[in-house]
């Protein structure tokens, strides 16, 4: 049996529900859970931790059925978006809160708290009240408090969403270093796909109280199982007709463009091609001698800056598609609106998605 097994969890809380959620997670895996508001993500965490008892279905952890176990006996840690630090205790006492029942003596307890605070860079804040800390410092304290008790499983409910962009990036790096570095088993709810890309091994997409797709990052992001998943993970679709299929490549005609993909399809059938913006390479000059099978001449219709990257909206004939480039590349290539460019897409980055929603 896997380290964590959720089998057919169902619960109806009126506004929120779970409708038969089943998931398996191995020890040391980092699962990112994404989905729109009201998808049931937080309820899922609260069922795992024991604040809600599912009306049916079971939760197994390390081979033991913990569905009926009280939350305090599960040894599952949680980090909330709003930190949930105890305002009447200072940072030291907050971190030490979970250790007070551990019979380790005062000195050992202090040593543990200080070591964890040092790892998270908050060792100089131990005497401070949580209310006097910045958002990032509060989140580090919450993380230290959850990790110091060495939980069997760590749950994180949008831990970075209340932070500003820079602190979010720093804290994300810290999560990678501290949480991933310790080999912790984690379920991380997020709205930010960057969190998933940076931290997760696997991703689950939830909607309407169900996990509608889960798997490795490549599987979910490159081969979304449905239009909803594709939209949610920023994948772009092209609809077209298969012109030829052979020698490991299929050629699909999309609004006069011919695009090649590694996926096989029946000649003459209507298919949808999925493309992720970050896989598109942009060049000012026509590239020669490149391995990419798809070379598309396009015009830059718009440039949407987004922090360190910009999204170029490219148009080729009737087809519009985005490409993600860094701010530096944009400046180096002196790309401006209405510039003529060439977009390169490897055949392996264009995936065929079936009309009925299941990836091939």
């Amino acid at each position, binding site marked *: 049996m896997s380290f964590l097994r959720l089998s057919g969890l169902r619960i109806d809380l009126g506004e929120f529900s779970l409708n038969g959620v089943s998931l398996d997670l191995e020890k040391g895996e980092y699962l990112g859970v994404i989905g729109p508001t009201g998808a049931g993500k937080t309820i899922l965490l609260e069922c795992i*931790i024991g*604040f809600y008892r599912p009306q049916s279905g079971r939760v197994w952890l390390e081979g033991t059925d913990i569905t009926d176990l*009280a*939350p*305090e006996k*599960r040894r*599952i*840690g*949680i980090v*909330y978006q*709003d930190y*949930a*630090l*105890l*305002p*009447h205790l200072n940072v030291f006492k907050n971190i030490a*809160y*979970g250790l007070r*029942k551990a019979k380790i003596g005062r000195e050992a307890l202090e040593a543990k708290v200080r070591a964890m605070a040092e790892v998270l860079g908050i060792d100089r804040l131990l005497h401070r009240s949580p209310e006097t800390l910045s958002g990032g410092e509060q989140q580090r304290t919450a993380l230290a*408090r*959850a990790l110091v*008790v060495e*939980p069997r499983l760590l749950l994180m409910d949008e831990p970075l969403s209340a932070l500003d962009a820079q602190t979010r990036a720093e804290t994300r790096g810290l999560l990678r270093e501290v949480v991933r570095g310790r080999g912790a088993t984690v379920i991380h709810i997020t709205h930010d796909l960057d969190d998933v890309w940076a931290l997760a091994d696997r991703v689950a997409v939830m909607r309407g109280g169900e996990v509608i797709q889960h798997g490795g990052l490549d599987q979910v992001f490159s081969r979304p199982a449905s239009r909803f998943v594709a939209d949610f993970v920023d994948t772009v679709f092209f609809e077209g007709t298969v012109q030829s299929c052979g020698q490991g490549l299929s050629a699909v005609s999309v609004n006069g463009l011919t695009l090649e993909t590694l996926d096989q399809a029946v000649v003459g059938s209507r298919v949808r091609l999925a493309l992720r913006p970050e896989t598109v390479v942009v060049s000012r000059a026509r590239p020669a001698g490149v391995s990419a099978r798809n070379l598309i001449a396009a015009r830059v219709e718009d440039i949407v800056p987004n922090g360190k990257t910009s999204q170029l909206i490219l148009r080729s004939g009737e087809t519009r598609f985005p490409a993600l480039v860094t701010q530096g590349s944009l400046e180096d290539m002196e790309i401006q609106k209405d510039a003529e460019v060439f977009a390169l897409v490897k055949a392996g980055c264009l995936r065929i998605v079936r009309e009925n929603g299941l990836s091939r």
Partner: protein
Amino acid sequence: MARKKDLFFWLTLCCGWVILAFLLLPLIEMVFAPSVQDMRVTIEDPAVRRTIGLSIYTSGLAALISFALGTPFAYLLARRNFPGKRLVESVVDLPIMIPHPVVGIAILSLAGRNHWLGEFLQSLGVRIMGSVTGIVTVLVFVGLPFFVNSAKTGFEAVPERLEKAARTLGASSWGAFVRVTFPLAWRGMLVGFIMCMARAISEFGAVVIVAYHPMVAPVMIYERFTAFGLKYSQPIAVWLILVSLSLFLLLRLVSRGRRAS
């Protein structure tokens, strides 16, 4: 830049002055009416001292009972939703709306010999009519809503997530309540305690029906007024106000001290 003061501002200010004058004038007049000699003679009367002491004792006990019974109930109302919750909350507020002599009559009718409960209490030796037990029972009845509502507001101000976080760190639901919720909501409970005691110490209508004797201060003030007139009732009223005010100020100071620490 000074804000422009229009007609509406002056209207609000005038209303404020009228209300303050309305509330303070009678009290100021009463406090300064008795001479120092009258005040000294009054407090030297053992019956007056006993009566004020009984008022403080019974109202304090009523507030303590409200605290013991009302805290878990207020927590339940703050944390849980259940069918009929609105109705239950209305029932808690009932004593505020019922005329207080009616409260006294209702309690007497329950505790009298014609009711099985009264008969049962009497078989246990518990007497309501004309006893301290009766006074405390009435005072709990009229004071409880003030404690429950204030404590409930205090609990509602503590995010449930804090308790949840504590539970994931090994605290039982009782442990999370004691170590997290109680230390954060105690101020609401203290305010409730003070309001409950203040309401109880001022109660007259219900007490006078259940227990004319032993005499609490409001009953004695009424008795002295009807028997001897205004001059003899005022000093007791002033002493009751002074003692109550000192107690409540002390409680407030203690709460402020704890907050600062």
